[in-house]
């Protein structure tokens, strides 16, 4: 037992927020503010490396738990804990935030201080979502991600930024009200917001009226998460939010915030309502399949680079939902891995799109063309990240998609077959976009003078590229920790199956 064990989760969660507080006191010298934000985000990342380093794979349940009374009445606890499911999502967050600081170095000129304060507050809220084990605390962090993100889009975005920010806010806000209602019902019946307590109460059948309410509770949680994922047909806020958001906002939105939805499904829908999850799985999987194919087809015809990437997220997150509701070990392992791989690859794609925007002030594909000639290094980085996103073997996209498809196939072959077409579609839209942007002759003469990547931009991109390769070559480093946690999450499903067989 290490001294840090009891405080590490609080440190990782709140150091960015403390940094944001300190940032308020620093005078408005933009350079100092950027450096300070970078140091804080790097410090958080380094601290978060403690989590996998001292993680005991054999230990069942939550690690580094903190559980203290926060409010006496109502009975709210500051209960944080980490398992193999949340571990890598926390690391993904702390990994992407320093890259976001680097990529925003020059593109943000005005209200620099407020920008980095919002970014750090957002980091705290996102980490909190993955660590909170008290449902009220979870809801608190869940909603507090909305405010900094809506401000990032609305203040620092471009084009119809207010429209996009309001749309983003309303979609996710309205949906999470249903989750709040479900939370309050559970509290009213169990007298506790604690995840583990409620889970035990439900599994031992000690919650009065649960049988009748469960389908609605399941839907309450599910709607909140499905909008966040986003699952077809609740996805239309995503392309708008992405196109207008500043680069760092897009990276964190696609890289981390979408995974809050799939994480929620895995933790709460499957964890609290196994029987409802199973009975609702068919239509959810069909929506996920529609999302995979529909998202890919719409991505293919977008004239705007960021919209291509945004719709590709709809498609890729469809894979995650498909894997989760296959209730197979492979499917859930794959879903977890796609979450991480998509965070790295799509984060990289948005950074690359942002770099181009700084030079051209547009995302329209028709204004590009032949860019590999003036920007060879940029084109190389872009190709690696595109191939990672497409799911080329030895890069990170392949492992997760393969596992998800294996799981879906086990569940029902036609799901696996339809899902597998998604892999082909993703090659279609991403490689076609790559061809139109980079290959051939330079179609607009002004593009001849575009400068290639500078050292800072390369510094922001290298970690993403290295992560994409390492995750593709050695996925077991990640899966070894994911696997036991997923197996634990699947235990109730084995019981449900045996119940069905027993009848």
């Amino acid at each position: 037992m290490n001294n840090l064990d009891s405080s590490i989760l609080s440190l990782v969660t709140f150091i960015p927020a403390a940094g944001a507080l300190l940032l308020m006191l620093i005078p408005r010298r933009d350079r100092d503010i950027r450096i300070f934000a970078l140091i804080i985000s790097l410090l958080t990342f380094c601290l978060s490396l403690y989590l996998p380093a001292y993680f005991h794979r054999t230990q069942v349940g939550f690690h580094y738990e903190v559980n203290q009374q926060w409010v006496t009445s109502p009975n709210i606890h500051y209960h944080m804990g980490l398992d193999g499911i949340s571990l890598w999502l926390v690391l993904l967050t702390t990994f992407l935030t320093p890259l976001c600081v680097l990529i925003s170095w020059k593109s943000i000129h005005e209200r620099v201080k407020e920008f980095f304060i919002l970014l750090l507050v957002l980091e705290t809220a996102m980490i909190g979502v993955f660590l909170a084990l008290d449902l009220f605390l979870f809801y608190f962090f869940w909603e507090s991600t909305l405010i900094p993100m809506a401000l990032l889009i609305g203040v620092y975005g471009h084009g119809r930024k207010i429209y996009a920010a309001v749309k983003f806010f309303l979609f996710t806000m309205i949906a999470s009200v249903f989750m709040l209602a479900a939370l309050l019902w559970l509290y009213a019946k169990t007298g506790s917001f604690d995840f583990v307590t409620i889970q035990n109460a439900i599994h031992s059948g000690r919650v009065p009226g649960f049988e009748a309410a469960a389908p609605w509770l399941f839907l309450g949680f599910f709607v909140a998460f499905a909008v966040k994922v986003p699952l077809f047909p609740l996805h239309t806020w995503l392309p708008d939010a992405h196109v207008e958001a500043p680069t760092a906002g897009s990276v964190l939105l696609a890289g981390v915030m979408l995974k809050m939805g799939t994480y929620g499904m895995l933790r709460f829908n499957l964890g609290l309502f196994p029987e409802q999850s199973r009975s609702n799985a068919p239509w959810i999987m069909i929506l996920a399949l529609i999302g995979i194919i529909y998202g890919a087809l719409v991505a293919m015809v977008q004239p705007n680079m960021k919209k291509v990437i945004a719709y590709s997220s709809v498609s890729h997150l469809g894979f995650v939902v498909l894997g989760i509701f296959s209730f197979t070990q492979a499917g859930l392992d794959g879903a977890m891995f796609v979450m991480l791989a998509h965070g790295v690859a799509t984060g990289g794609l948005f950074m690359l799109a942002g770099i181009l925007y700084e030079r051209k002030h547009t995302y329209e594909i028709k204004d590009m063309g032949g860019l590999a000639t003036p920007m060879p290094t940029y084109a190389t980085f872009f190709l690696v990240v595109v191939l990672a996103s497409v799911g080329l073997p030895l890069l990170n996209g392949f492992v997760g998609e393969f596992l998800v498809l294996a799981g879906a196939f086990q569940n029902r072959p036609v799901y696996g077959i339809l899902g597998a077409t998604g892999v082909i579609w993703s090659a279609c839209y991403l490689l076609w976009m790559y061809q139109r942007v980079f290959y051939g002759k330079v179609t607009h003469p002004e593009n001849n003078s575009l400068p290639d990547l500078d050292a800072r931009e390369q510094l922001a991109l290298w970690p993403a590229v290295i992560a994409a390769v390492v995750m593709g070559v050695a996925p077991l480093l990640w899966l070894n920790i994911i696997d036991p946690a997923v197996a634990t999450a699947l235990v109730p499903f084995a019981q449900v199956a045996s119940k069905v067989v027993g009848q």
Partner: protein
Amino acid sequence: MTGPLMILALLSAVGGFIPVEHFLEPVFGHGEVAAAAETASASLETTLKFVSVGVAGLGIFLAWLLYYKHRDLPQKIADSLGSFYQTVAHKYYIDEIYAALFVKPLVEGSTDILWHGVDQGVIDAAVNDSAVGARHASDAARHMQSGNLRSYAGWVAAGGAVVIAYMIWMGVAR
């Protein structure tokens, strides 16, 4: 690019002399290689060698004839063959057929039906219309608050009438 090409050219000329017979032994084992060697007799191997070199030589000769010696010859051949030449030159129009059959319907269908139709026309429109509807409803309700005392008195009277009517109705129902 000349450097790599030179290496490849050199290898394609003399690569055959590199002794690689034992290269695949770890995979196929000795027995199968020996068996394969027995079936393909030595004379057949020699014949095939000469045929392939001959075909390559013929190709080089034809290229020299058509594109170096008589440069007008390719055009004449093309003219004399007519539509057959056109078909072959366009690779039997496979690309065009594919584009018309698959690419165009897919791209246009995705644009017109899925993106503009479903995404913008149905889902987004429903969301935006609900916002517009809420605004219209609120706008209508807003006019109740006119600042006009007589109209307020009217609203109070109307409210009172509704309450009385409700109480009477409840009494009758009981």
